[in-house]
């Protein structure tokens, strides 16, 4: 037997492996008396290795069983949230499409009416979302990523509509109340709100261009005032190097484009006289 083993040590890897396979049953029967070599390596554990109980494997199984149940539950919640988020996305698409009519000189009240119908749909969906999250208190931010972009989009559309309506900024609180959110329970994340405003700013250059084409020469001044103010308000924020920062950095291009349009209109004397003075003062 020893001779076979010795050979196994020094022959080619493949042969060695085969030899090992055939040797296994032998090893099981080997006793220290006729196989002294095995005593040195086996059984060392008696003097101080950890005490491995047989129940270790089953206690591990129980632990993981618990985890599986928990993770499956949170997976279900996430799936339901994603379902709502998909519906939100659809509602937002319809809302966006209806708002795009402002570029085609459809009257503002008409556009607002259509947009508001979708706001109601959104409010409903946010209500459902809040309902789901009520089941897992404190875990808002665990699932937040699943409706973030929808919220940002909603803020961008709502704040644009709000500006069309009142020429002022939709505040965070107003945005929440439009969507029926209660900040004590299910609020709107501040960063989502701010990112939404940046998205809204992206829409303004196109709006200005189309309004001027349609003969509204006062529009650039109004938009420029608003956007300048918004931009300088954003500069009060200490931003990290994150998505919001990137979006804010993009805002200056919107501002420049609107300035250009304003300049084009002004230099040709198209802007109403009173308004030019207003801007200058």
């Amino acid at each position, binding site marked *: 037997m*020893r001779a076979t*083993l*010795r050979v*196994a*040590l020094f022959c080619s890897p493949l042969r*060695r*492996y085969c*030899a*090992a396979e055939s*040797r296994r049953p032998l*090893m099981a029967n080997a006793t220290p008396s006729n196989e*002294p*070599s095995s005593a*040195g*390596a*086996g*059984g*060392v*554990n008696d*003097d*101080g*290795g*950890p*005490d*491995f*109980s047989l129940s*270790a*494997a089953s*206690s*591990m*199984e129980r*632990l*993981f069983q618990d*985890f*599986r149940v*928990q*993770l499956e539950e949170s*997976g279900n919640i*996430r799936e339901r949230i994603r379902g709502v988020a998909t519906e939100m996305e659809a509602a937002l698409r319809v809302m966006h499409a209806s708002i795009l009519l402002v570029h085609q000189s459809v009257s503002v009240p008409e556009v607002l009416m259509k947009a508001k119908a979708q706001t109601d749909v959104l409010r409903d969906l946010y209500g459902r979302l809040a309902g789901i999250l009520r089941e897992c208190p*404190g875990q*808002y*931010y*665990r699932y*937040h990523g699943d409706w973030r972009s929808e919220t940002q989009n909603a803020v961008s559309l709502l704040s644009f509509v709000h500006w069309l309506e009142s*020429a*002022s*900024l939709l*505040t*965070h609180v107003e945005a929440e109340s439009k969507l029926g959110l209660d900040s004590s329970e299910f609020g709107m994340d*501040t960063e989502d*709100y*701010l990112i939404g405003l940046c998205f809204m700013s992206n829409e303004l250059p196109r709006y200005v261009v189309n309004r001027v084409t349609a003969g509204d020469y006062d529009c650039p001044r109004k938009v420029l*005032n608003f956007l300048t*103010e918004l931009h300088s*308000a*954003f500069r*009060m*924020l*200490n*931003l990290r190097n994150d998505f919001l920062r990137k979006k804010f950095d993009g805002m200056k291009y919107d501002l420049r484009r609107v300035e250009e349009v304003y300049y084009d209109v002004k230099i040709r004397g198209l802007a109403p006289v009173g308004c030019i003075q207003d801007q200058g003062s």
Partner: protein
Amino acid sequence: MMSTTSAMKVEFEHHSNYLNELNDKRERVVKASRDVTMNSKKVIFQVHRASKNNREEVLSKAEKDLATVTDHFMSKLVKELHGTDFWKLRRAYTFGVQEYVEAALFCRFCRTGTVLGLNEINATLVPLSHPSDEPLQINVLDYVLGLADLTGELMRLAIGRISEGEVEYAEKICRFVQNIYRELTLLAPIMDDNAEMKKKMETMLQSATKIENACFSVHVRGLEYIPLLGTDDIDYSFMSLQDLDS
């Protein structure tokens, strides 16, 4: 015009304060997490120093060090994280907590050969928070991610044990790692953000394979070979163990 200007200013001052506070807090959490990581790593190194002769002494020291990490550094995290921060700032502290879980599991495994449950770890964190606050509890995800990392340390431990001739111990480690890997194959796909876990599963399989191969090598060849060479200066290169640790 003036009124809307100041209204917007007020609105943004509000957000500015919010962001400043959030960023400061995040920064503090990141720092605390880094301290937890660094000191948990030291605990793991300490556990690795254990060998046949000094096990008790080394493990006791490791356990004491772990208690220090809990009291000095985990407590800082506990102080910062309240309510929604727990999930909101998870990315800022997850690595520290994973390392901490790993160190705690490693100590427990070397002591008893069992897996330290999440409830047990969380129970040690309860006294750290103010009685009126909801105590910080490590979540399942960070626990499982820490457990996944543990297999890397167990691989090193197994190789080390084999070098010292504690083959039976190494085989038990092997079985333990195989169990963990098998259980985690069921969990990994249903975890929240499983990209990180997927990567760890691959590494874990590598670690498991390395232990299995080392056990195989020593089983097949080592038993005959060790006594022939003597025990003082053993050349293990024939087992191709030297690159297993990397």
